[in-house]
């Protein structure tokens, strides 16, 4: 069922996304579009573990921040190209995620969530108060800037217009969705769903919940890290507050939950719905009303939790099934209900 909506809705969206830079030349709009794709990417990376294991992490921004710092520092200090730096950053994030995940995945529900916040906050507060660590200039709360090399330079990950940045994040988004699709069909995907459905039951059947949750978390942290490195490169600036603050984690979680967690397309739908709203509010009246877009995010989150606990992808799926006649609707609804019942 899920595959269908992924293609029916996903392919036209992809075609549209590929074509947009051909018509849009305004660099502000292109930048905003790249940001939509960025949040879709981050939400999808978050979804990779949280959506499938059914645990709510609000510490993912730590992975983005660590990878961003690694990338920027490798470039500014050692001259390593950000392309390699991104991979190194992603690997550092994955490495960090293993002890964190080992400690936290034994916890349930709110305990897990609050512990992930605690981990991320420790890291952020430490960074904000550390100007120099073992000779590495971290510059605390002030953050790091990436000096411009001048003009477009592929190796330096710096481009004149916004178009290259746009296509890079689009390719990354397609990549994370493909990875999610492969994971869904793999042994790992089935194990994760089993763990989400009934952790003890899965364990009794020989699925090691810690091991598989950790595998998914490490991949998710790696992907989140790539996104965090991209974020730092796009702005050529990184600081602890914006690049690893709790707001970034909350954004990822909200977009995934509103869109539909545990689905391939859901996080992207959530980002497509929420980020433009936030951006428009900020661009029009946001100057005088700081934080208005977050109020809207909060309201959307509450509405989604109450009315669409499985995300807006569920009514879209029903709409799609509706065209195939009544029987499909009933079957779809029953299936959706069954999913809802045992989902958590």
């Amino acid at each position, binding site marked *: 069922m899920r595959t269908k909506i992924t293609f029916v809705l996903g392919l036209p969206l992809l075609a549209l996304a590929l074509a947009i830079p051909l018509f849009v030349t305004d660099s502000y709009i292109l930048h905003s579009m790249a940001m939509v794709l960025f949040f879709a990417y981050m939400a999808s990376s978050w979804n990779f573990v949280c959506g499938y294991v*059914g*645990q709510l992490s609000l510490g993912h921004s730590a992975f983005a921040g660590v990878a961003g710092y690694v990338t920027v520092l490798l470039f500014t200090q050692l001259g390593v190209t950000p392309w390699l730096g991104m991979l190194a950053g992603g690997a550092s994030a994955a490495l960090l995620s293993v002890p964190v995940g080992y*400690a936290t995945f034994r916890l349930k529900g709110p305990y897990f*969530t*609050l512990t992930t916040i605690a981990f991320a906050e420790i890291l952020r507060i*430490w960074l904000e108060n550390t100007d120099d660590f073992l000779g590495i200039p971290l510059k605390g709360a002030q953050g790091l800037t990436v000096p411009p090399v001048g003009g477009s330079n592929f190796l330096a990950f710096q481009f004149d217009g916004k178009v290259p940045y746009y296509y890079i994040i689009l390719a990354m988004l397609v990549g994370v969705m493909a990875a999610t699709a492969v994971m869904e069909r793999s042994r790992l995907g089935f194990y994760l769903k089993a763990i989400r459905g009934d952790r003890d039951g899965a364990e009794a059947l020989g699925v090691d919940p810690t091991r598989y949750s950790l595998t998914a978390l490490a991949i998710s942290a790696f992907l989140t890290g790539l996104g965090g490195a991209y974020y730092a490169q796009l702005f050529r600036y990184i600081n602890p507050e914006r690049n690893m603050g709790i707001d970034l984690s909350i954004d990822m979680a909200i977009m995934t939950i509103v869109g539909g967690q545990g689905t391939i397309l859901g996080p992207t739908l959530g980002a497509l719905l929420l980020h433009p709203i936030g951006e428009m509010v900020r661009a029009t009246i946001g100057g005088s009303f*700081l934080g208005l877009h977050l*109020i809207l995010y*909060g309201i959307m989150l509450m509405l989604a939790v109450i009315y669409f606990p499985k995300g807006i992808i569920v009514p879209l799926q029903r709409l799609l099934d509706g065209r195939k006649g009544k029987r499909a609707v009933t079957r779809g609804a029953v299936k959706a209900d069954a999913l809802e019942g045992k989902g958590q």
Partner: protein
Amino acid sequence: MDLLTLSFAVINGLLIGGIYGGVALGLSLIFGVMRVINFAHGSFLMLAMYCSYLLWATLGLHPYVSILATVPFLFVVGYFVQGVVISPLFKRERALVVEPTSALLLTAGVYLVVDNIVLMAFGPDVRSVAVDITYESIFVAGLPINLARLVGFLAAIVVAAALSFWLKHSEMGRAIRATAQNRDAASLSGINVQRVYNVTFGLGCAVLGLFGALLVPFFSITPNIGLSFGIKSFLVVVLGGIGSIPGSILGGLLLGVFESVASQFVTATSAAIFSFGLFIAILLLRPAGLMGRA
């Protein structure tokens, strides 16, 4: 470090710790009765602090007088947040047990809305209330004790005792305890569970109305201080045992002393790292909390 500095740190830690305990009372009560972790707990405290600040800045009311307004206001806010926002979740669940993550998400939505409404209304500036009591201290055995903190500490003890007494002996208190023990049986005995939930949530917030007003004389406020108080409250509740009122005060005292002594060795901002570290350590050693049942 000499003994004098240390004893001063411990006394200060006990005072602020008592207040932490008082702030956490509502979280503990709400979780104990409804099994809902209120992510917006700290935001409600922040809201109370801004109410008190507003009354001081516009009408010149002393923060201690503004309690008369902040407590009922926060009760009403809590009552309606539960009645309007959270209760649909309870009604939806067939098994009548709220799946904890949904409730957490829902209250995370409340957190975003409340924090940002206040940010919109007051801006990100740091604000503080200057009243005489801020600078007054009494001396006990040669050690200065800040009067405003002492008042907060004593209030926490009194509120905890009064709440325990009320839960034991009043009609509503009995209904609340019955609902906490077994919601279905309470409902069968003629208790209006929805109303009990509304009152519990309102009460949990009303306590924050009190402590918000007691905190402003010596605590600068910004719109985003809620979250750290929320997390600290959760830590206090985990330390002292979920749903236990004396446990909440005890947990607060532990955290307060720990933080205060830790900040003698490192800067105050880095001391927050130690509270988070303590939080993680406790959850790792006892995943369901110090007193919790796994």
